[in-house]
């Protein structure tokens, strides 16, 4: 009886440990803290296709990988956020060629604003 109890206890404890580690997703990267659901939706729909490890475009991968942002050192992260803001302000992304082929990929003004204010506040929080 005692052994049974301690087995149940062990199972519960290991179950709890599992719940604690669940914010780490399959790629082993921290999720959650960096992007709100709203921001993540825009990134997934309009940016992630090219700016992720599965992308065919080497240029896009070299310029920005959303998944690696949480691993960047502070100065690199601010620099990347600054690039993102500039690209948004100048309407350079998604590229004109992509939009011509897939008009639905164009960033709506509301989406642009979501990304821009996210990048700005994120950068400001790292600066003096």
């Amino acid at each position, binding site marked *: 009886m005692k052994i049974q109890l301690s087995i149940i206890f062990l199972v519960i404890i290991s179950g709890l440990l599992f719940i604690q580690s669940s914010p780490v997703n399959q790629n082993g990267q921290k999720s959650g803290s960096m992007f709100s659901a709203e921001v993540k939706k825009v990134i997934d729909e309009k940016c992630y296709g090219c700016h992720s490890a599965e992308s065919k475009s080497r240029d896009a991968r070299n310029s920005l990988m959303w998944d690696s942002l949480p691993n960047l050192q*502070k*100065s*690199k992260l*601010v*620099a990347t*956020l*600054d690039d993102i803001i500039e690209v948004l302000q100048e309407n350079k992304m998604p590229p004109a060629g992509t939009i011509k082929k897939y008009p639905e990929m164009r960033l709506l003004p509301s989406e642009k604003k979501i990304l821009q204010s996210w990048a700005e506040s994120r950068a400001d929080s*790292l*600066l*003096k």
Partner: protein
Amino acid sequence: MKAANKILIALAGVFIAIQFIPSGMPENKPEEKNSIVHSNLIAGPVLEQIRKSCFDCHSNQVQFPWYSKLAPSSWLLANHIREGRSNLNFSEWENYSNREKTGLLEEIKDEVSSGKMPPKSYLLIHRNAKLNTEEISALLKWADKETAKILE
């Protein structure tokens, strides 16, 4: 008249004619308080390196060579200077926000350490603009220090 002579005269005519097309060369402006030169951020040898290796395209203080007055080289030069200043202008350093400064310092580190800057074509003519290993590491150290000051 021989055909070769005719061609030469025609070429000379074209050369003279294109001198009247304005190059749109950006002008030098006196250094104001926003310049990195007056900011106490940088002094001594590192400032001199930047002046020597970067200022021709990345400041309002260009040392114009003689061919900057002659088309078509003046057109190329005008373009390079305009582009260089729009990406980074040390004469207007203090006008950049801290975020922009961080971005620029990171870019300076990347470009200088990878040898992309100063560009090869510029070094062909301006040999003394080439940065040696010690100068590069002094510049990188300076950029790191500046970045640390800005970051929280």
